[in-house]
């Protein structure tokens, strides 16, 4: 009985907090930046083996199954944020929640550092180069307030500081799924709804074309 009351009280107390919850608990303040800088990729490699991350992410962060997610060479800051978001349930995925549930911040940082140190994906798929898609990528669409994808995701799709992920070499299906999740509000760990806003304005066809463009091999730097 006491336990039920305690749980119910806890739930009731959580309600106002849950209502005002930020989309992600992760902030790139001095402490987090320091944590990431001092993370150890060797420890991360060990953790990756223990966690059997290779099952979905490949031995070196690049999978040969196009339904998987390539994470090799992504910034450690981005990977860390996603791992923390999975752990905090800011980003909803049962499998990733289970994998991250019992890891502390140091371990998450080490894992991120390990995958960041790997060579990014070079997988090649069909590449669309129609003018409309290129325009979206490098110019955007002022009418829909869409900015050039390249402005945040980099001219070569290699991403930007902290939480602008690399898109180049990612599996197109994953990109399509992710954009669809943003579009429908199923994924909401993008701070200030930056990607939700973008995805809402894009059509399904545009999402597919963009995914095919970024999924193709872009030259490594």
């Amino acid at each position, binding site marked *: 009985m006491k336990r039920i009351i305690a749980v119910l009280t806890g739930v009731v107390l959580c309600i106002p907090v849950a209502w005002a919850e930020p989309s992600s608990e992760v902030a*790139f303040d*001095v402490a987090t*930046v320091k944590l990431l800088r001092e993370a150890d990729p060797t420890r991360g490699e060990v953790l990756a083996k223990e966690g059997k991350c290779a099952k979905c992410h490949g031995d070196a962060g690049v999978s040969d199954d196009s339904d998987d997610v390539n994470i090799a060479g992504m910034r450690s800051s981005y990977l860390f944020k996603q791992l923390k978001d999975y752990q905090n349930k800011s980003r909803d995925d049962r499998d990733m929640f289970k994998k991250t549930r019992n890891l502390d911040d140091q371990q998450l940082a080490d894992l991120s550092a390990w995958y960041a140190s790997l060579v990014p994906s070079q997988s090649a798929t069909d590449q669309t180069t129609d003018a409309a898609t290129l325009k979206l990528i*490098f*110019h*955007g669409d*002022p009418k829909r307030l869409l900015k*050039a994808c390249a402005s945040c995701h980099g*001219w070569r799709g290699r991403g930007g*500081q902290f939480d602008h992920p690399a898109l180049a070499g990612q599996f197109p299906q994953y990109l399509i799924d992710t954009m669809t999740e943003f579009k429908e509000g199923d994924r909401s760990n993008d701070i200030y709804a930056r990607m939700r806003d973008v995805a809402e304005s894009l059509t399904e066809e545009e999402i597919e074309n963009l995914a095919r463009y970024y999924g193709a091999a872009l030259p490594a730097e």
Partner: protein
Amino acid sequence: MNQSNATSLSLANMWVGFIAFIVAALLGLYQVIERIDLIPGLKSPELYFASVSTHGVLMAFVLTTFLVMGYGYATATSSLKQDLWNKPLSWFGFWLSVAGVLLAAGPLLTGNASVLYTFYPPLKAHPAFYIGATMLVVGSWLWCLEMVMMMAIWKKAHPGETVPLAMFGTTANAILWFFTSLGVAAEVLFQLIPWSLGIIETVDVGLARTLFSWTLHAIVYFWLFPAYIALYTLLPRAAGGRLFSDQMGRIAFIMLLVFSVPIGFHHLYMDPFQADGWKFLHMIGTFMVAVPTLITGFTIIASLEIAGRLRGGKGLFGWIAALPWGNPMVVAAILALLMLTFGGFGGMINASYAMNVMVHNTQWITGHFHLIFAGTTVIMYFAIAYYLWPKLTGRQLHSTSLAIKQLWLWFIGMLILTLPWHQLGLVGQPRRISSTPYDESFVQAWLPAEYAMIAGGCLLFISAVMLIYNLYRTHGNSQAETNLEVEYAEPLHSVQRMPKLLNGFGFWVLLVVVYLLASYGYPIAQFFLMDTYGTVPWSI
């Protein structure tokens, strides 16, 4: 020149400046073409912003500092008829500055210092950029020391005599530069270098911008002083006349020294972290610093009128036509004064406190400083070069008519480049953009001015090449220059005894220090009295 002691030092400094100039001019041409996607294959923000950063550093820090130093060495030795105080130290300063430029060039040219010539944090450049910039400035401090020492030695050897106006102005500039560079020196030494090396984690952007603003205004007077010195001391004689008033020249230089340093907040009008009371105080100083420029305008035009009338010009404006329009110094001076009128007017708008909100960080600003700096100041740098090269090299100028054409082309190109920019700013085009992915209505409205910008840029680049070619060919000219004396203008009325206040800087330096403390003391201290949050490094 009487004193050949500084000839090669002077030429070396000015050549470094002009080499920087021609490289930067080429980059400028690339920038105006790239902007409207004329050649889609060229589109690359990485390349564009690396170019803008390099262009800005070369034009605003390298061309200027080395020109000032080169002209300063030539002026000091020729006007005082005295050897350099410490030639090895001056050469060391030159090499230190050159090494600094080369060190900073590495990251700049490889896209690792695309932080623009204002390098506002928290965008972080490679540490070599900041260290190179520091070396450039420290080298220039050695020039300052040389100027001050030469004037001091001369005064000791000529007690009671009047320091020649050209040297008075040059020393005023040296003192000005030292005091104004302290701001950026503090920002770079205490904040940016340790932060870019990872020794400190964060930088307080408000403090950094406040320190930079300390330097940011008076640095333009550091650049402008040689132009004014040439207008006062070389132009009247080149035009065939006299300097209207030597005293007013001194007063103008002193007013510039005192009022230009502690007024940097008109660069921070739009920033939140300074209270508007301080901004108002700086605004008052900013309007006061317009007065010596207005005085200079009068004195120089009056001097030109004397020359024109001496040459037979009659009537209200007839003296203008009678001036020697075949003399590069005269042409440059008149074109400089015309551009000063436009640019100065724009400056008064920028200084106008809350009205600044309408132009801040728009292309109006880009138009303003290109007109007043690349126009008025730099055209006088050309004039100084055309005047001094024969005297420093001992060879006649390769082609006077080419020089005249080059100056006119620069003037016309500058107006075509900058006047549309002012208009673009008023209709809201932001600054420092590499393309225009905005509403179609904006982009279409901006296009005509953008085409004008390209036209202006092309004319300017051609003019820049003409200048370098002319100076380069002068070295190998078979015709020797017989008149190696720098001929300083005689004042209309000779002054028997110059008041001490107009012959030295002791009191004025004190005033500068007091005014600087009053204008910047609390505004800087506040950052240490309140809890501030610094920012970690950000890549571009």
